[in-house]
């Protein structure tokens, strides 16, 4: 791998930019690997990278049915945060924040991590109390938080209607100053390039159609490019988890797939310096470096594999945006799209060995997959390499549902589309 640097940019500029090489190879599949990761999204690629970089397991293939980054890693609203209440989630997402901070240096690829702050707005005194509690819990777990009153919110976000006369008047908000954004595509490309440089084969347009079994044990996968064998097979396929696991004979999981839509407006001059979320509904908005407002809200509340949603969510999301920022009412929408969320029954992920011998499962990311990308791969790689969960992901088991230990951050119960 040729390292990227300021020097390499200058040198290539002077030589007509003819010396850049592809960021990763397009290898032919080998007959056998030590580990196969199904799913060339953020989590699969980061898993492969950490297997190679931290555990010395370099004979690894990442099998991706489409092109690299074609799934949720390229479809999210790029928010990175760790403002959780339950210890299992807090420790995990803080691990992710720790990795995010050094990720560009580690991968030698600018993932444009921008800790610009995530501000959750409160609209009632009761909600302020709840946010004070949440902020205190974050602090107890070592995560910085600041409770802001209405004036402080108004100074932070000049475009916000803090007049007190809006339909849902803003009381204040809870700020996680260390949270922010990262460039989602760059995360996929950066992990792919760094993993490839360590010897990982990234097999694009290679769709898994079945699993190779010896008895109960998974010993490889069948693909449209032939059989590939491996000692260990990790599954990190987000919204397609149930579909892929069914090929292995796992007919039921505590997961339902739904569609989450996201939106980008036309470009405007800088107006939102951070990430703002609406507290009287569900909306999160930030501004990309190109100037477009990137925003999203709730999932469409029904099972879906369609990668496109319906109009009621557009109406809900855009009306929430305009109630917060009345001056956005005449903005035009540039694009919208949908991604398939693997909504778990308690809203928390699964990173575990099993459920079959030789298999490892990484799933149940709900809305939260993007910010988890580094820690998810870090923990999944540890789990695959050691056949045992790391302390950080030891609570994210499949057994927790049977044992009565769900990690239900919202207290919404086993209703996946409410998480």
């Amino acid at each position: 791998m040729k390292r990227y640097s300021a020097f390499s940019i200058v040198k290539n500029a002077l030589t007509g930019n003819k010396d850049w090489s592809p960021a990763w190879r397009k290898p032919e599949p080998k007959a056998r690997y030590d580990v196969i990761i199904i799913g060339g999204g953020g989590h699969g690629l980061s898993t492969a990278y950490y297997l190679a970089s931290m555990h010395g397991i370099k004979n690894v293939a990442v099998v991706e049915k489409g092109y690299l980054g074609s799934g949720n890693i390229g479809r999210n609203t790029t928010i990175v945060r760790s403002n959780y209440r339950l210890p299992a989630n807090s420790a995990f997402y803080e691990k992710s924040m720790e990795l995010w901070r050094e990720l560009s240096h580690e991968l030698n690829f600018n993932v444009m991590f921008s800790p610009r702050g995530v501000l959750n707005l409160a609209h009632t005194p009761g909600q302020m109390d709840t946010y004070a509690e949440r902020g205190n819990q974050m602090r107890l777990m070592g995560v910085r938080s600041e409770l802001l009153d209405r004036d402080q919110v108004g100074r932070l976000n000049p475009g916000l209607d803090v007049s007190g006369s809006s339909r849902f008047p803003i009381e204040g908000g809870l700020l996680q100053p260390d949270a922010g954004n990262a460039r989602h595509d760059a995360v996929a490309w950066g992990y792919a390039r760094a993993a490839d440089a360590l010897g990982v084969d990234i097999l694009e347009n290679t769709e898994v159609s079945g699993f190779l079994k010896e008895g109960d044990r998974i010993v490889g996968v069948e693909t449209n490019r032939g059989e590939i064998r491996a000692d260990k097979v990790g599954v990190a396929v987000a919204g397609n988890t149930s579909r892929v696991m069914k090929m292995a004979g796992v007919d039921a999981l505590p997961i339902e797939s739904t569609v989450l839509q996201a939106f980008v407006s036309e470009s405007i001059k800088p107006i939102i310096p951070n990430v703002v979320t609406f507290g009287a509904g569900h909306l999160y908005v930030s501004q990309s470096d190109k100037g477009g407002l990137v925003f999203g809200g709730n999932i469409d509340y029904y099972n879906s594999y369609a990668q496109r949603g319906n109009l009621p969510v557009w109406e809900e999301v855009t009306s929430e945006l305009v109630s917060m920022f009345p001056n956005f009412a005449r903005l035009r929408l540039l694009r919208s799209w949908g991604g398939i969320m693997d909504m778990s029954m308690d809203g928390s992920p699964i990173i575990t060995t099993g459920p079959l011998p030789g298999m490892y499962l990484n799933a149940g990311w709900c809305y939260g997959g993007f910010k988890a990308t580094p820690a998810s791969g870090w923990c999944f790689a540890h789990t695959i390499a050691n056949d045992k969960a790391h302390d950080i992901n030891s609570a994210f088991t499949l057994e927790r549902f049977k044992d009565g230990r769900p990690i239900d951050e919202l207290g919404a119960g086993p209703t996946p589309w409410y998480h």
Partner: protein
Amino acid sequence: MRIRCPWCGERDHREFTYIGAASAIRPPIASTDMEAHKSYVYDRANTPGDHDEIWLHTGGCRRHVRVRRNTTTHAVSASEPVGPWRDTLDALNTVDPVGGDKT
């Protein structure tokens, strides 16, 4: 997305509240089989394609409807009444439902 209510006819899905997969059926209350109760609460097949599910016609007749909907196209191919009103449908259909079709 439009859903046909057996009583009210085809309506915008915004009139309905999604209740969940129709395959989730509670084991007999006397059952002490923990695995069966856990499966009822948590385990779902979640396969793409035709999906049987229960919707509540919240903004209409407030009855539950079993719907077969394709999760890759959102097309609804069948809907039928469920619950204690199931057997009253024929009697109701002799009365003109307001704003709906009778079929």
